[in-house]
């Protein structure tokens, strides 16, 4: 796991998973251990223990307890998840915006300036038999800066899963959805399409390249996108 990577909203996500896992293990233990003990203790023994207890067919106190206590636990879990959800869905004010289009099969990433004008475009294309991305197909973002991604699709439904940030959102034609993430450690990470979209689904990926802010600024000004665009045109004319 990329726990050493400090990424958002992944950090909160990992906390939430830990909370759930603790609760689940405790509930499993509280339920399964007595269950197994009963199975061992109250075993049928010819001549000795041939019929079970016929007196107790229920116990209102117990039954009320195991209705009320779980209700409280699940309401707590849902409310906790709600608070995290608000953080996940609210991009910080200083976030930069990218717009990503899904298509069969690949991603087109537009970098927008403050006025929403496209200043650079990266195409991440489908490789039917490998997971290698050329340098100019990598989606580059600055480290330590929140990125808001507006998502939509050009054909069928896809999705945009930023693995290090543990966040997904579908890309739906005719709609613009969004998510945000921030990755603090430079490096290369996976982005996958997680909504089924046909033959190329399992190879619809992109590499997310996180670089220091200065490097990103230089990259954004640079002309590497000319190459990508030329490649896109040849692909599309095929």
């Amino acid at each position, binding site marked *: 796991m990329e726990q050493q990577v400090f990424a958002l909203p*992944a950090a909160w*996500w990992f906390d*939430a*998973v830990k909370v*759930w896992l603790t609760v*689940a293990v405790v509930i499993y233990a509280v*339920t*399964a251990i*007595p*269950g197994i003990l*009963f*199975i061992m203790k*109250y*075993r*049928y023994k010819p001549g000795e*223990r*041939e*019929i*079970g*207890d*016929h007196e107790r*067919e*229920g*116990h209102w106190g*117990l*039954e009320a307890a*195991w*209705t009320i206590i*779980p209700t409280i636990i*699940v309401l707590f*879990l*849902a409310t*906790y*998840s*709600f608070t995290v*959800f608000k953080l*996940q869905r609210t991009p910080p004010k200083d976030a930069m915006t990218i717009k990503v289009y899904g298509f069969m099969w690949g991603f087109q990433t537009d970098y927008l300036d403050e006025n929403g004008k496209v200043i650079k475009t990266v195409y991440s294309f489908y490789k039917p038999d490998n*997971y290698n991305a050329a340098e100019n197909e990598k989606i580059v973002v600055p480290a330590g800066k929140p990125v808001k991604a507006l998502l939509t699709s050009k*054909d*069928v*439904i896809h*999705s945009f*899963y930023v693995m290090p940030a*543990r*966040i*997904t959102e*579908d890309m*739906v*034609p*005719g*709609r613009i959805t969004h998510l945000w993430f921030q990755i603090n450690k430079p490096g290369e990470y996976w982005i*996958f399409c*997680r*909504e*089924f979209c*046909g*033959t*190329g*689904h*399992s190879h619809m990926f992109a590499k997310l390249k996180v670089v220091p802010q200065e490097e990103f600024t230089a990259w954004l000004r640079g002309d590497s996108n000319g190459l990508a665009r030329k490649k896109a045109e040849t692909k599309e004319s095929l």
Partner: protein
Amino acid sequence: MREAIPAEKPYFLASLREWIFTTDHKKIGIMYFVTSYIFFLVAGLFGLVIRAEQTQPGFQFVSPEFYNYLLTGHGAVMLLWWAIAAHIGGFGNFLLPLMIGARDVAFPRLNAFSFWSFFGASLLVLLTLIPGNHIKMMWTGYPPYSATGDAGPTALYVFIIHLIGISSIAGAVNFITTYIKMRAPGIGFWNTNMFVHCLIGANVIQLIGVPSLAGAVTMLLLDKYLGTNFYNPAKGGDPLLYQNVFWFYSHPVVYVQVLPIFGFFSEILPTFARRPLFGYTSMVFAVWGIVFLSFEVWIHHMFVSGVPDWARVIMSYTTILIAVPTGVKIFNWLGTLHGGAIILRTPMLYALGGIFMFLIGGLTGIPNAMVAIDLGISDSLFIVGHFHYVLAMAVTLGILAAITFWYPKATGRMFPEGLGKLSFWLIFAGANLLFFFQMVVGMLGNPRRYPDYPAIPEWIMLHQIQTVGGVILGIGVLVFTIAMIKGLKGEKAPANPWQSPSLEWRIDSPAPANNFGDKPPKVEPDYHPYKYGAPPAF
């Protein structure tokens, strides 16, 4: 206990003509069951090929197109044939009239029609095996993809669902009417078998839910072949409409699948703990609570689909609340074990295994319901692991438990005990190896519906463990199947091998053709299906 019934031949000694044209609920039940068991084996084999393909990165055995076909077939057939038809069509038909002391269901001819409509759907599934007719849109069939050429013949997908739907609605109308109108005098709401409560609850869901699924796929059919715009965003339609209408049924369907299983557990546990079912009343409330809640939660399958945030939060709460009535059932089963005289026969092993696995499946449903966690694991193999725990474990073990439990009533023979136990341990071990590590690799990020994945070392190792589990599981199913066939020539069964007070055990094994004879059975005034008095006869 009851007057001798006229010596009637067992129901299954009938000519081929009588089998085909039969309207008898027992024969129809058996035909349903045999059809779905065969489809289970085929879909399971598909599952093993899927499993094999994922063992290593790269494409080893099948092309991505063929993988998509296998996965579509695996999901759809497992869900609609194995997890619905086997216990509702099969056991529901066989047991419902016997448990309420009726001669047959309310509309026997409609019942036969239900089966033949289901059989028609089975034939359509066989047609998709022909190259060129592979459906590759997954069991969920989301548009716009399912309306493109890449997805295969959409029409077949839609009509399979239509035929199954007709069969389910007719069946639901039939069962509900039967329960309301045909109980023997003395059987009331509060002394009905839990299986019957669960079955009727499940059929209420079917009645209200199936038309919604039928509507969703009909709109898909019209969009693809007649050019309507339901799901076409360019002309005012919306692809999310499909998902809403689809999940409005396809979430509740999971309780259609699991409620009868809860019914099986509730029949088998008291029998082999030799004591009454604990908390019968709260069990009944829990069933109907689940039925009611199940229609309020469908957005949890669309947490990342782009629906408004408020809808996600509301349905996150409603979803997680289902843990409460479900928990009530689990705790009541524990209460039943407490103070029992527990006998670990094959049906009991399967039932206990099923309950403990359901517990894992249920607890791994909780993070999916917590919307914040779901944003990170939706459409990953974690989800797949979650539902295999509930479906491939709880539901499957539950059906196998039911087979071994009512085998004497259906065949007049005892289920082979040794092979039964062996198959249980193989299936139990294999399935845990497979599906636990599926959840782990999903937590690490592995997306679902991926025949291929990047060569990340932990992922590869986790997939290899799963495949080992899959093979053990497959052998277990094979052993069970052999046992089931061998048992037909096995030891003869008495009328009531488990010494159960429940009505279906008061007639001969195998069940006579006319059930209880000409008159409804006499039910004592204080009848209750779980009054376990005498020790069993074995």
